[in-house]
């Protein structure tokens, strides 16, 4: 990220507490650069939708500053913020035809009827709905409604695009194609976007950067690969991707004791005797034949699920369990945990 460019969206210490509860978001800070797609992910109730509502202006923060293209909009009413919002259930106006829905932002801006029609058709073409401009929303499929919602949110060239779980109401097949479609349109319009989801595949595959929320707090911010490969803590490791999390006691500079046995690790700076957690991603564990060697353990299969491309196997090793994801078709006898697959996590 270049230092000079002004972020399209910028949050500084933004907090909001729902009156009479302890729920909300607390001290959130991150930027969305022009053209960037940031995906906010977290379990339900973590405050991700609250965050979107704060940026859109449906809620006003108790503290902190929200900027759009450098302007402080923390107290600006929603309609003057110029954020395009795509809602979870699309929220298309049921009494308006597709093109009227799309053109609504232009109607309240007093654009002429002919111009409204022209631009709505243009926008509908962009989202791949050319022939359907005179339909009513109820006559469209879920994916089509989604596209209308997207067109409606983009037609007035908003300062940011906010998408609240836009794919959650779609069936699995449509979801994946719509995911690519959102990415294509977002790229084409080069618009700063925040997408809310609880689906890790969606987050990992769509995001330029990811924001992980937990109980209203930002726990990690980074590129998808960074989040996956270097999760900040056990929560992130578990929530984004599958994870083997092992309690570990440090023996010496390159060795820890875990329930599955003694593990040789990359050099770490922890003192002997300290207690921590180590992370091993299931796909990093290898099935091996020889039973002797560094970090090789005898394994007993507890569950073996075949998914075609991969197998997910749960094995008992020592006093612990490991989850393994592998393309290998071999019989499981011994497992190898490569030294460089082992990561240390903050104990949370």
């Amino acid at each position, binding site marked *: 990220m270049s230092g000079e460019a002004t972020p399209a969206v910028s949050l500084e210490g933004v907090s909001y507490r729902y009156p009479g509860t302890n729920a909300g978001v607390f001290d959130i800070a991150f930027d969305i650069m022009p053209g960037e797609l940031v995906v906010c992910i977290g379990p339900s109730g973590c405050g991700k939708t609250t965050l979107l509502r704060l940026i859109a202006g*449906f809620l006003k923060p108790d503290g902190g500053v929200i900027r759009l293209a450098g302007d402080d909009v923390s107290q600006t009413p929603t309609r003057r913020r110029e954020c395009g919002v795509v809602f979870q259930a699309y929220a298309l106006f049921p009494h308006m*035809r597709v093109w009227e829905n799309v053109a609504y*932002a232009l109607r*309240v801006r007093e654009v002429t009827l002919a111009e409204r029609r022209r631009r709505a058709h243009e926008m509908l073409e962009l989202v791949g709905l050319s022939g359907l401009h005179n339909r*009513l929303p109820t006559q469209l499929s879920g994916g089509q409604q989604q596209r209308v919602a997207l067109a409606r949110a983009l037609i007035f060239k908003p300062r940011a695009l906010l998408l609240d779980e836009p794919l959650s109401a779609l069936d699995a097949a449509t979801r994946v194609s719509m995911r690519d479609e959102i990415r294509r349109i977002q790229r084409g319009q080069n618009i700063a976007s925040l997408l809310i989801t609880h689906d890790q595949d969606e987050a990992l595959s769509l995001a330029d950067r990811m924001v992980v929320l937990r109980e209203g707090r930002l726990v990690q911010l980074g590129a998808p690969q960074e989040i996956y490969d270097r999760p900040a803590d056990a929560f992130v490791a578990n929530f984004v991707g599958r994870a083997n999390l092992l309690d570990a006691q440090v023996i010496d500079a390159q060795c820890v004791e875990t329930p599955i046995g003694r593990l040789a690790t990359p050099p770490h700076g922890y003192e002997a005797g300290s207690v921590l957690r180590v992370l091993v991603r299931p796909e990093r564990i290898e099935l091996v034949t020889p039973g002797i060697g560094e970090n090789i353990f005898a394994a007993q299969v507890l569950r073996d699920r075949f998914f075609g491309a991969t197998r997910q196997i749960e094995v008992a090793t020592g006093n612990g369990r490991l989850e393994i994801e592998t393309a290998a078709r071999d019989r499981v006898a011994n497992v190898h945990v490569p030294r460089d697959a082992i990561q240390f996590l903050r104990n949370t």
Partner: protein
Amino acid sequence: MILRCVTGCYLVYLAVPMVLLLTGSFGELWLNTLLPTGLTLRWYRDVAADPSFRRAFLSSLAVAAITCMSCAAIGLPLAYAVFRAESRRVRALSRVLYQLPVALPALVLAFGFIVVFSSDTLPWLGSIWLLAAGHVVLALPYFLQAVVADMQRLDLRTLEDAADSLGSNGWQRFAHIVLPALRHSILAGLIIVAALSIGEFQFSNLIAGFLNRTYPVVLLQAFYGATGFACAATVILLALALCAAVAGGLSAGGAARMKVTVA
């Protein structure tokens, strides 16, 4: 099979009184026979010629119209306030409160009105406005129920949020989104209100002044006279209520269809 049988029996049960009324209204003489003898339009002519029925017919229409307008004027903001209330407890409580009049016997309401409005300070007993005011109390819960349910079904709040984010102000949201999105339930609610007002007897009978008695009140008198006359007068009331419902239903359906065919 059983379902069909039950449905059939119920339909017959519903239809029999109306069929009897219709037969009676066209029959010349109906004394000790199963069916009346002779065919005539005389009873309808008589009802139409009767000045007190003509007056009552117009009074009923006027009261129904005032009641509908008042219900819309009071009910819409009220429904909106109930729907938008922040606290869940307030919403639940207000729902119970606005449904209370359903449990209130019209008789009780009428006695209350008599006590309050027979005094010298508020001597409005017998006016058409007071009649409509009572009908509003009795019919408003049904209107509110229809509209609030529709607001919830449409998730009106999110629709408004969407319009808000697209740059509309409060007035535009009301005119462009709230009102048109709710038009079916508003209309349906008003049909119920009109039908209730036209058919209301208990309250009207006690409150109406001699000069602006509503149709059902006058209708009661008819049953002391000729059977055919009473039947004809009742059929007219039925037709009146039915017309209101059909007209409302047609315009609601028509509005929906128009949207599609114009497209």
